[in-house]
């Protein structure tokens, strides 16, 4: 009858509705997935562009300008490392640099003379209780203990500064003595008498005047250990030398007090060349 027919229609309608719902759901799903694909494609393209940029950047090509508002994290890190290294290099070049350690600080004092970098020395300090020198590589003839006794506990900066003065002055004196021995060995008679601190130099050298050579003796005493110029100079010639040479000796004595040793000898050579 009619009810059966109605039931059948109802059932059909129900089925159709369900199917439609299913289809709609599927379509929705499809649409969502399509949208997702779009999103992902977009992201991929962005990343690709970034990679290309980085590669181009590494090859140094002036290609596409990267978005300045968004430098990559890697670029930022690299820049940071570079500027820290530069800062450390600057500190090293100033002559005194330090690094915190587990138990204190480790300092490095670098010496230089007239633009030439010479040796570096290290100090490993403990700072937990009172300040103590744990280890160091300072030469034994530098009065480290004396300097430490005076300044280490009260004023570390002063301690480092005074020590650095001693080390730099020593490096300068040694440099001058080495230069003298190396470059002017033909003018030196016999051996150059020196000592570990290079604060006493005694040597004989030749001075030519009117195509005759006369032996001079020089004794340079460096009374100030923080200074690379001598405090006392004695230049003497043999008793039988002509009187004019006494003036030359005095002039040399004065020169040694004011000018670096090897530079003084340079000026002797050039002066003699111009005279003869």
């Amino acid at each position, binding site marked *: 009858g009619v009810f059966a027919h109605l039931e059948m229609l109802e059932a059909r309608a129900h089925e159709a509705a369900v199917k439609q719902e299913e289809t709609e759901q599927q379509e929705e799903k499809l649409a969502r997935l399509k949208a997702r694909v779009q999103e992902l494609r977009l992201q991929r393209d962005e990343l690709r562009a970034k990679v290309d940029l980085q590669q181009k950047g590494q090859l140094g090509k002036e290609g596409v300008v990267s978005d300045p508002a968004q430098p990559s994290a890697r670029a930022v890190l690299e820049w940071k490392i570079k500027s820290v*290294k530069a800062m*450390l*290099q600057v*500190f*090293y070049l100033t002559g005194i*640099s330090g*690094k915190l*350690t587990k138990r204190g600080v*480790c300092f*490095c004092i670098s010496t230089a003379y007239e633009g030439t970098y010479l040796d*570096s020395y*290290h100090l*490993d300090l403990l700072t937990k209780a009172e300040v103590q020198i744990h*280890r*160091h*590589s*300072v*030469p*034994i*003839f530098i*009065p480290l203990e*004396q300097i430490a006794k005076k300044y280490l506990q009260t004023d570390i900066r002063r301690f480092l500064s005074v020590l650095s003065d001693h080390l730099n002055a020593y490096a300068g004196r040694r440099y001058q003595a080495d230069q003298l021995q190396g470059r002017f060995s033909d003018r030196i008679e016999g*051996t150059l*008498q*020196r*000592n*570990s*601190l290079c*604060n*006493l130099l005694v040597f004989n050298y030749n001075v030519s005047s009117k195509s005759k050579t006369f032996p001079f003796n020089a004794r340079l*005493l460096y*009374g100030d*250990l923080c200074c690379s110029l001598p405090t006392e100079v004695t230049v003497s010639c043999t008793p039988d030398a002509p009187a004019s040479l006494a003036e030359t000796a005095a002039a040399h004595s004065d020169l040694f007090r004011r000018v670096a040793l090897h530079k003084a000898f340079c000026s002797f050579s050039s002066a003699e060349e111009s005279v003869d």
Partner: protein
Amino acid sequence: MDVTVAEYIRRTVLKIPRDEIKTMLQKWGFLSETQLQTVNFHQIKENISQDVVQLCEENSADIKQAAVLDIIYNHIYPNKRVWSVYQMNKTGEETEFFDLTDFKKKFKRRLRSALKNVTINFREYEDNAVWIRIAWGTPYTKPNQYKTSYVVYHSQTPYVFISVSVLKSNLPLLCQALVVASNYHDIREMELRSHSLNSLKDIVFKRYSQNFQTYYPRPLQERNVAPESGDLRIIHENRNERERIQRVNQEVFGDGPQPKLEFAQYKLETMFKSDPKMGVLDEKEPFRCLVKFSSPHLLESLKSLAPAGMADAPLSPLLTCIPQKARNYFKIREKKGFFPGSFVSP
């Protein structure tokens, strides 16, 4: 020429390896180049030495010149002797102006005022080192050239390196003369001995490799130890541990070569700790024990112990403190930092 001098020169030449004889005689400078050319340095050493003595006869060598040859030999072969290190002390703070002539004069005067029969020779070297050779006699006999002491002193440092050989009784006199000549107050022997003079110098002058932490960029490639070369089939199971050991070792020993010591000696004066039930050594007396580590190169072998798997890293500070404490003789007493704080006072 004195017969004893001739014999002394002959014996000194015999000590020198044959290939080195000519160079050493040239360094000596006592025989002229023409004289040296008359000697056949390829014959047996017996004959070479005879020829050399003959030439020295022509030049009338005396003991002073013969002594110089001995100094040169010992300077080139210092490792044939055992060297001890002595430390000098002074209280004043005046700047030192080491004057070599002054030093030599004071030393000779002091020594000779106590003992007339000595032969004293000096020789200076480029590294500010003064070598002193002393041949000892007695108040009644001439100096015995075969009983010599050697002293090496670097100006303006508190350390003296002495190789005594036989007559230890002359040591106090020698020490006194050194103190006076170098303007110090007193001197004591350190607990540091070795055949390698240069290594002793490295230790007390702090020239050995110490690992200081600095920011100064050392190229990192240097530190990455050579890659596991060789067989790629070998996989190191405990690579982390190996790397840790390398790191710890480097922190302790540094990168460079170690000073060369032949032994380290530990004298124990500690109580024997045993299970009380065992009842061993009931009397509470220290257990006397001497531990001696010997090696052709002690510090290098200690450095290689942990990487070779024979010891744990880090090594005991008793072993690793040797260069820093500048000693290789230790007395270990009971308790409180069993560390050998006290020096053995003279």
